[in-house]
């Protein structure tokens, strides 16, 4: 078991954002979390890092309880996040952004990892001395994924990686997700608004509503579920 959340509650200011979340991620799985705006998807991701900290419940990662561990310490234990909105350091170069990703990895792997990233994302090699803020949205998304991978995480979290991207980049993102999992055995937890594609790449999925898990199942099951279809896959008739 890579990650277990047991009855996790969390508050965001005065909002009770998570109300008893139970989620499991097995080693080598892609798990997708879908839900409407404001359902608490991003809060759930961030609560894994203790930001906001769970007010109740337990989070176990790789056999260790991380509920009370510092954010930076959790990151060092092997969870990496590609956050919503990408959060590239805008005034650092592409190279420096990648170095930040590798800040707590074994320096011995650095050169090999960098080469791997450049192979996976050739655009980053071309842009390596450009400032992060000057990249286009798609390029930033590639950089954000590469940055996360530089730390050789055991678990990769992706928060809305397709948001605001051109279709061509959306394809690329899902392709990478699939490759990472299939070719490198990476365990991935994916949060998506784009439920259709997200569920298609996932082994399993959860539906989050008002801070609670309302449905769980394999990707195919959820895709077929009438509730999911009605709420997340088909537009109303307008």
């Amino acid at each position, binding site marked *: 078991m890579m990650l277990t959340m*047991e*009855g996790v*509650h969390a508050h965001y200011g*005065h909002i009770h954002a998570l109300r008893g979340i139970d989620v499991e991620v097995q080693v080598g799985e892609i798990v997708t979390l879908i839900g409407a705006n404001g359902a608490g998807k991003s809060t759930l991701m961030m609560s894994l890092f203790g930001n906001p900290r769970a*007010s109740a419940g337990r989070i176990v990662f790789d056999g260790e309880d991380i*509920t009370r561990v510092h954010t930076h310490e959790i990151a060092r234990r092997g969870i990496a996040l590609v956050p919503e909105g990408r959060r590239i350091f805008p005034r650092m170069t592409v190279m420096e952004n990648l170095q930040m990703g590798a800040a707590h990895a074994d320096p011995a792997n650095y050169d090999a990892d960098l080469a791997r990233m450049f192979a996976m994302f050739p655009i980053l090699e071309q842009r390596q001395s450009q400032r992060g803020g000057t990249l286009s949205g798609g390029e930033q998304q590639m950089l954000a994924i590469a940055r996360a991978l530089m730390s050789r995480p055991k678990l990769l979290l992706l928060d809305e990686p397709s948001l605001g991207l051109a279709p061509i980049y959306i394809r690329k993102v899902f392709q990478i997700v699939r490759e990472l999992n299939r070719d490198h055995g990476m365990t991935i937890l994916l949060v998506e608004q784009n439920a259709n594609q997200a569920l298609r790449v996932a082994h399993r999925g959860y539906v989050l509503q008002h801070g609670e898990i309302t449905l769980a199942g394999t990707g195919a099951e959820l895709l077929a579920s009438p509730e999911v279809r009605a709420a997340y896959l088909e537009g109303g008739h307008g």
Partner: protein
Amino acid sequence: MSTVVFARHAMTAAERLRDAGWVAFVGFILGVPLIGLTTVDVGGRLAVNTRFGLLAATVAAVFAGRLLLRWGLDQARERKQARSAAGAPASADERAQGAQKVVTVLGWIALGAAVALPIFYSDNRYVVDTATTVLIYVMLGWGLNVVVGLAGLLDLGYVAFYAVGAYSYALLSTQYGWSFWEALPVSGALAAGFGILLGYPILRLRGDYLAIVTLGFGEIIRVILVNWTEFSGGPNGISSIPRPSFFGLDFARSAPEGEQTFAGFFGLDFSPMHRLIFLYYLILVLALLTHAFVSRLRKLPVGRAWEALREDEIACRAMGMNTTNIKLSAFAIGAMLGGFAGVFFAARQGFISPESFTFAESAIILAIVVLGGMGSQMGVVLAATLLVLIPEFGRNFAEYRMLLFGAAMVLIMIWKPGGLLSHREPTVRLNPLGRAGAAREAAR
């Protein structure tokens, strides 16, 4: 699905001791160079004196203080947790309603107290005078609140407008014999003019760049007042500024030929308190007018535009708002109110000099706005009262006075980072308060 509620676990005795020990150790390190050692003058040379006894006492006090503080904080947290466990947390609407009610009640109490104060203290100069000072700062705070709290423009040189008002009145009255009431609007307009003058060159600046330029502007005004002796009296300032009269009646022991004094007209025995109380009510009226003016403005397009500007300047432009005019109007109105306060200050002191208009003064006024809760009118009253009274209370502690003042500023800020009253009341509501909850339920 088990719900284990975490209470942040209470510290064990050993942990408490270790924590306090660590803090005491830091206190020791910090104390060595300043408390443990001191230099004294022995016949034209310095020698080092040691005060290890004092240092030890300080470290012990820090240790005990930390233990006590931790314990107190833990208690407070426990009580808070118990309370929130007992009752469901109030909804945002209910909280807003509650806060609004408190502020309203508080406002009326403050007003009542303010009106009644001179009646209860009619023979106490100090109380009336201190209350007058509080009101001057309240007025200044309300003025700066327009610039900083509403429009979100950080102004570290607000004292410049205060100075412009004060000097305008001082010069108009001593040089040209203008009365208080004649000079008041002119001085306010002059201050507003300076506000626009300052506003123009810095329209493009943001945040801290704006702050430093306003700070510089304040300093420029002060340096000019100090050096341009022919105009401002230089460092000597201007003395013998006439006091405002009560509809032409002076507050003097005896009137010049053909005029009457206040006491004489009303057949009272002369008392210097009459003038003091009159000045007090004068500033009270000015302050109330300011309050009415600013609260009204806040609900007008211009006031909403200020707040929108604070929230997002680019969105303002995209909505077709002329941000230049909005900024300038904020500077002008803030400056005008500062100018009014300055006029009153000059009239009350009877003497002004550049020393009253230093950066420290700007910092205090800004602190009033921020401590009060940006944009909150009642917050300004509360903060002004605190910041004037703390140093006055401090007089009992002689040389520790300013030390306590500094510490209090830090502590209040940490205690209430959003200011004492941080609740923002909307300028307009679609659904009046009581019904909001119902409306929300209906929407679910």
